[in-house]
């Protein structure tokens, strides 16, 4: 599948707070922007793939969104995979286009947990609530603890990720949080579910995002010059309960990346820029190691030594990631990856030829990877 599909356009809303607006309105706004970016008409779209809204899962959601877009597409669906769903949907779109099921797809997402309900992120976790086991963050705290203990990883190692993402996000006026932090700020931020500090945790944001997927051939035919080729993609899944996983410090992100690298015919050393799902700082460190971008136990020191900075060996989350641009799950990372490959990112990495994007969902339950290349 290497290079067969392209992302021909990207669009999103302002990220942050959208009081009084519903999530489907945000999706429609993002899709309108993505279609305009691609320079195509709405009625050319015959696929609508939507990530399930975290804050309000609902049945036949893909069809509900298609209705608001005024479309009766050939292919329509919503996917429940938490934050991995966006890249997963782009890969399904790529394959469905290749198989002839559809021609042009919108992959989209929108939600309003910031001004609506964020209860989903604070909910009791099954029968273990009797022990006080609540909130999405708790699973990550359990993983953070195991990882930090195993590799003698210091708080400064996690802090380096937060400081870098917040610095990049500070340059992004469309992002949710434009406030850089110092390592001291990080160290002083309050403990929520120890070992997680407040600044280890991503934002909760309202917002919508969308991308247009079609074949490279179709993009060429339509004269879309800056369509970004999808070089590779993959997925990996964990079990439901964090505590039932045999290993807390390695994840199926490794399988996801391995599949994507093989499809792309690339190796970790070939990656120029990374947009890694930073719902929590430990997620970035684990992903770097699972992807083979860092040796086991070395992602923390790598971050602390500046490798993830804009002038480092692997610039990270150049628009701010979930820690600063938007807590919305995943598509903002894809969009920034597309911009880096087109060369029109706000904090452009000069000469970047490849970008890896990670999505993951739940408490590292689901993993999806995508590798993007320069427009040909």
């Amino acid at each position: 599948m290497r290079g067969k599909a392209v992302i021909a356009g990207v669009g999103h809303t302002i990220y942050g707070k959208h009081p009084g607006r519903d999530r489907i309105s945000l999706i429609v706004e993002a899709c309108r922007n993505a279609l305009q970016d691609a320079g195509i008409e709405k009625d050319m779209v015959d696929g609508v793939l939507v990530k399930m809204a975290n804050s309000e899962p609902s049945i036949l959601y893909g069809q509900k969104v298609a209705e608001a877009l005024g479309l009766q597409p050939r292919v329509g669906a919503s996917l429940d995979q938490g934050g991995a769903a966006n890249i997963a949907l782009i890969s399904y779109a790529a394959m469905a286009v290749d198989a002839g099921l559809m021609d042009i797809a919108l992959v989209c997402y929108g939600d309003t947990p910031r001004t609506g309900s964020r209860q989903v992120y604070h909910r009791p976790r099954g029968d273990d609530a009797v022990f006080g086991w609540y909130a999405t963050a708790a699973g990550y705290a359990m993983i953070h603890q195991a990882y930090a203990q195993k590799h003698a990883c210091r708080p400064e190692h996690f802090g380096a990720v937060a400081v870098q993402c917040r610095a990049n996000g500070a340059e992004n006026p469309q992002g949710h949080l434009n406030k850089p932090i110092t390592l001291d700020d990080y160290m002083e931020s309050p403990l929520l579910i120890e070992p997680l500090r407040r600044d280890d945790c991503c934002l909760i944001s309202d917002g919508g995002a969308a991308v247009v997927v079609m074949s490279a051939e179709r993009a060429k035919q339509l004269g879309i010059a800056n369509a970004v080729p999808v070089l590779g993609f993959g997925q990996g899944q964990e079990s439901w309960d964090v505590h039932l996983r045999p290993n807390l410090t390695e994840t199926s992100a490794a399988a996801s990346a391995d599949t994507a690298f093989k499809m792309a015919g690339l190796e970790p050393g070939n990656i120029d820029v990374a947009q890694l799902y930073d719902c929590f700082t430990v997620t970035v460190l684990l992903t770097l190691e699972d992807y083979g971008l860092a040796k086991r136990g070395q992602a923390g020191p790598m971050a602390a030594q500046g490798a993830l900075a804009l002038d480092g060996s692997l610039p990270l989350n150049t628009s701010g990631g979930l820690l600063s641009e938007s807590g919305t799950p995943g598509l903002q990372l894809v969009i920034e990856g597309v911009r880096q490959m087109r060369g029109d990112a706000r904090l452009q990495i000069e000469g970047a030829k490849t970008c890896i994007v990670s999505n993951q969902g739940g408490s590292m339950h689901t993993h999806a990877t995508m590798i993007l290349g320069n427009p040909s």
Partner: protein
Amino acid sequence: MSFPAPETNDLNRPYWDGLAAGELRHQHCSNCGNNWLPAREACPRCLATDPVWQPASGRGRIVSWVVYHKAYHNAFADRVPYDVSLVELDEGPRLLTNIVDSDAGRALSIGALVELKIEREGDLTLARFRLVSDEGTA
């Protein structure tokens, strides 16, 4: 504010009845020897049905833990900071629990030995654990 209650059903009732009777039970597969929690109708390793319930020794080790500094439910508001710990039993099953003498997590470490300490919590009987000294380790 009411304490959260587990959902009991025919499948997991032997677990809760076991605790009320003073023992921690896990499921065991007679076909492949697998031991696990929580309750399932079929063995998650070989998919054989009709697992049996067996009492656990009550001994295990800490795999990881967290300490809540914020209560996400009012029932825990006067307990913060409190630990939630992941314990692997000697027989293999993993479970979440509280370590009663954890000193808000400060006494905990990965690999630390623990033993069962069944406690009443209102109408519930819960499998909590306490730290044991290392006299058993070689």
